[in-house]
């Protein structure tokens, strides 16, 4: 293990910034520390860098205990949020700073600075001052400066937070490219942005209130979140309270077919993009097929909304049934009957258009205070505010998570 934190605890006066934090990062691995602000992720990074001294616990680098070593003797590359490029030094001198501190021969300094600036695509900017660079360029220089000392560990503290959205997407690509160029080093990446963590990290450590909540490979964490907090923070999953009996798991009175009850897991987790919306008319057809339990309101609402009104092409092929549709309707109802899904009746309380998709927030009848967010892809019809809808939750996208704090 290149980086190892054992039971690291950091107190600032009375406030506890990090509590009993364990983490190990192997060479060639990228671990993202993900969490809201104040979750201790930056503190963990600062403890590794040596900027803060842990009150308890040990930090090891490549097997050596560095807990009591000053940052200068750890040999870790650090990129901080605002980059902290020395404003009085030119770009090349910024990159050379660490090499000169190590008293490397002049020729080697020049060569290495050239290599580093070449790698981040800033070779022609060596004579500039940091203030003459854009945010993205400053970030590249900061990375070049950190990597110039050939560290075995690179720490990145919210490296994209200071950039605007378009640039952030570009730099995310740059960081992926960089990862391939320096494969041998271990990277710890602190972020509050789940998409950055998912894009870059091999493993994600989710943090909250100065503690580690979950740590697992990114895909695993996303597919089967071990805790409610991780489920909602990573990908904004919907969490619905479920009831369990010997027969199975029910949500708002509807049985979830095929889902086994698990001890201590009382929340149903489902991602917004996995849920499909149907007009109540379609639901009534499905109900006739003998699946799910429906409130009477849905049946009543069917007439008001009109199934045909929601007849988008995609909807028609998979879900819309009933005589009102005609044509594909009959076939849809048959398919629907074999699909394992749970249907919840509710109404739309908010809708946000997001370009490529719309996020619709619905309330479920019978589940007070629980709102369900649904991503409706562009091209599909977004139900109007206040309209009655049926949420179709495919069982393969459902998982159970324990309630309460991580």
């Amino acid at each position, binding site marked *: 293990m290149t980086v190892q934190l054992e039971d690291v605890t950091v107190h600032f006066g009375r406030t506890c910034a990090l509590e009993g934090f364990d983490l190990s990062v192997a060479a060639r691995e990228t671990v993202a520390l993900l969490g809201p602000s104040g979750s201790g992720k930056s503190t963990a990074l*600062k403890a590794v*860098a*040596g*900027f803060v001294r842990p009150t308890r616990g040990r930090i090891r680098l490549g097997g050596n205990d560095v807990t009591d070593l*000053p*940052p*200068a*003797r*750890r*040999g*870790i*590359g*650090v990129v*901080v*949020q*605002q980059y*902290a490029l*020395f*404003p*009085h030094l030119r770009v090349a001198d910024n990159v050379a*700073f*660490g090499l000169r*501190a*190590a008293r490397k021969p002049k020729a080697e300094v020049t060569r290495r600075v050239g290599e580093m600036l070449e790698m981040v695509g800033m070779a022609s900017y060596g004579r500039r*001052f940091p*203030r003459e660079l854009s945010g993205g360029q400053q970030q590249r220089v900061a990375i070049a*400066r*950190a990597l110039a*000392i050939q560290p075995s560990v690179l720490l990145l503290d919210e490296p994209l937070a200071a950039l605007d959205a378009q640039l952030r997407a570009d730099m995310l690509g740059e960081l992926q490219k960089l990862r391939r160029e320096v494969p041998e080093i271990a990277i710890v990446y602190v972020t509050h942005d789940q998409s950055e963590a998912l894009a870059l990290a091999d493993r994600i450590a989710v943090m909250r209130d100065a503690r580690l909540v979950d740590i697992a490979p990114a895909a695993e964490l996303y597919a089967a979140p071990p805790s409610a907090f991780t489920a909602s923070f990573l990908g904004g999953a919907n969490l619905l309270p479920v009831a369990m009996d010997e027969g199975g798991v029910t949500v708002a009175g509807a049985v979830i077919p095929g889902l086994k009850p698990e001890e201590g897991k009382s929340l149903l987790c489902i991602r917004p993009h996995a849920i499909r919306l149907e007009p109540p008319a379609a639901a009534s057809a499905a109900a006739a097929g003998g699946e799910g339990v429906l409130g009477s309101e849905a049946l009543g609402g069917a007439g008001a909304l009109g199934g045909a009104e929601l007849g988008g092409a995609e909807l028609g092929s998979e879900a819309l049934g009933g005589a009102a549709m005609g044509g594909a309707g009959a076939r849809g109802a048959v398919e629907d009957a074999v699909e394992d899904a749970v249907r919840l009746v509710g109404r739309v309380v908010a809708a946000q258009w997001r370009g490529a998709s719309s996020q619709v927030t619905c309330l479920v009848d019978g589940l007070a205070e629980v709102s369900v967010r649904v991503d409706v892809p562009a091209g599909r019809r977004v139900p109007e505010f206040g309209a009655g809808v049926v949420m179709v939750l495919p069982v393969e996208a459902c998982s159970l998570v324990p309630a309460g704090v991580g």
Partner: protein
Amino acid sequence: MLVWTRSGKAIVWTAFAVVFGLLVLLPFLVVIAAAFAGSWNGVLPSDLTGEHLRQALSGDELASLSVSLQTAFMGGLLAVLFGTWGAMAAHGSRFARAADAMHHLPIAVPSVVVGLGLLVAFSRQPVLLNGTKWIVVIAHLVLMVAFSYGTVAAALQRVDPSYADVAASLGASPARVLWRVRLPMLLPAISSAAGLSVALSMGEVGATIMVYPASWRTLPVSIFALTDRGQTFVAAAEAVVLLATTVVLVLILDRLRGRAAER
């Protein structure tokens, strides 16, 4: 802008011009006019002469100018040194508030009291400074250190501590971080503190008049003494010399600061 109408603006500007002219500009002009006046019996001075200025730039009076410059440089630069040191040492420590209060004490205390205090403290063994130039330099140092400290401390508040952190993580020793990162980044504040200290030191009277020995008389004290003896025109000429010297000094220091701030 609070005033929008054309006539309103005119009134405001006129009021400003009258107040500024009467309170700031006029005394200057009178001093300059008096410096060149042979006599001043009517509304305007008459018998214009360069004699006073020549007098102000010769003998004892020229020595006063030299004394003032030396005091300002020694006192002012020592004040910058101690002020910067104090501000950097106090920054971020739990004694910062106490250090703030201690450093600002000389501003709160009247300068005459500071002078008296030094006189009482250093007129006897083991540290006998009374009668030497050092007691004047120390008085200036004590008075100016507050301004240096304040300027540098304010700049430190604005400097992100992560610069020093990053420099250290790149392998720089604490001394290297200090000399290559922290001090260069504070240079604009330090040179502005130097300008302020030297300018204030050039004009200091209150404490100096309590402690100065006959051999170390600064220009403002000379001006005060001449005025006291009724030699107003020579005093005015010396005042012009003092003014010119201070302006030139501040301009030079400002130029240096401009270079440092170029980033």
